[in-house]
C-alpha cells in the first residue's frame, strides 16, 4: 500500500513511476486547457475527474484532460483542485 500519493517524494533511491510534472497551462473560461507548455490545444479527447483519499491529510482532487496539441503530440494534463496547479502525467 502506498501511503502518500500527492507528491514525488522517494524512499532512499526508490522512486515513483509516472510521477506528475508541473505544466504550464492556459485555460478557457470553462477550465478546459487552451495552451499547454506554449503549444495550442487542437482537441480535447477526453475529460475525467479523480477524487480520492478525501479522508486523509493528502486528499486527491484532479480534473484530467486527454489532449491533442497542434503539433500532433498527445498530452494528458490535470488541474489539481487542492492547490490550483497544473501537472502533466501519463494516465
Amino acid at each position, binding site marked *: 500500500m*502506498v501511503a502518500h500519493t500527492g507528491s514525488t517524494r522517494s524512499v532512499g533511491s526508490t522512486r515513483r513511476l509516472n510521477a506528475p510534472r508541473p505544466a504550464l497551462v492556459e485555460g478557457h473560461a470553462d477550465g478546459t486547457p487552451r495552451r499547454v507548455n506554449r503549444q495550442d490545444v487542437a482537441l480535447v479527447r477526453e475529460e475525467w475527474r479523480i477524487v480520492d483519499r478525501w479522508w486523509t491529510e493528502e486528499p486527491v482532487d484532479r480534473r484530467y484532460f486527454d489532449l491533442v496539441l497542434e503539433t500532433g503530440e498527445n498530452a494528458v494534463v490535470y488541474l489539481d483542485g487542492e492547490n490550483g496547479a497544473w501537472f502533466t502525467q501519463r494516465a
Partner: protein
Amino acid sequence: MLVDRLLERPERAGRPPRKLALWARLVGGASWRRTVTLREATADPARLRLALGPKLAELPAPALKLRLEVVELAESTGEQLELVRAEGDVLKGRLREGLRQVRAAVGAGGVSMVVEVAPWSRIPEARALLVPRDD
C-alpha cells in the same frame, strides 16, 4: 605490451575484463585517468587495444608513466556462439551479465525494476515504484 602483461596476470583466473582504467603521470606532475567499460567483456588483446586506443589519444600532455588497471572482471570465462535459441538458465545468465555491464557503465543504482504496489489505483503514480536492483 601493457595489455599482454595484464592478460598474463594469474589473479584473473581466466575471467575477461569488463572495465579497465588507464592512468598516467604527465610531464609537469599532473595525473590523468580514464575508464573504459567494454560492451562485452573480453580477453582478446586486439579488441582491448581497439577499445583503449582512442582513450590514449585524449592524453593532454606527454606521459612519463602509464598504467593499465582492471577495474572489474566478468564472472564467466567465455561464451560459445549459439546454434539454437537460448532459454532458461542461459537466458537468465545473459540477462544478469547485461545488468552487470549496465552497472559497470553507469554505477550502482543504474538498474531499477518496476514493482507494482497498487496496480488497481486510480492515481497513476501510486500504481508502481522504481526500485534500484543491485543484486
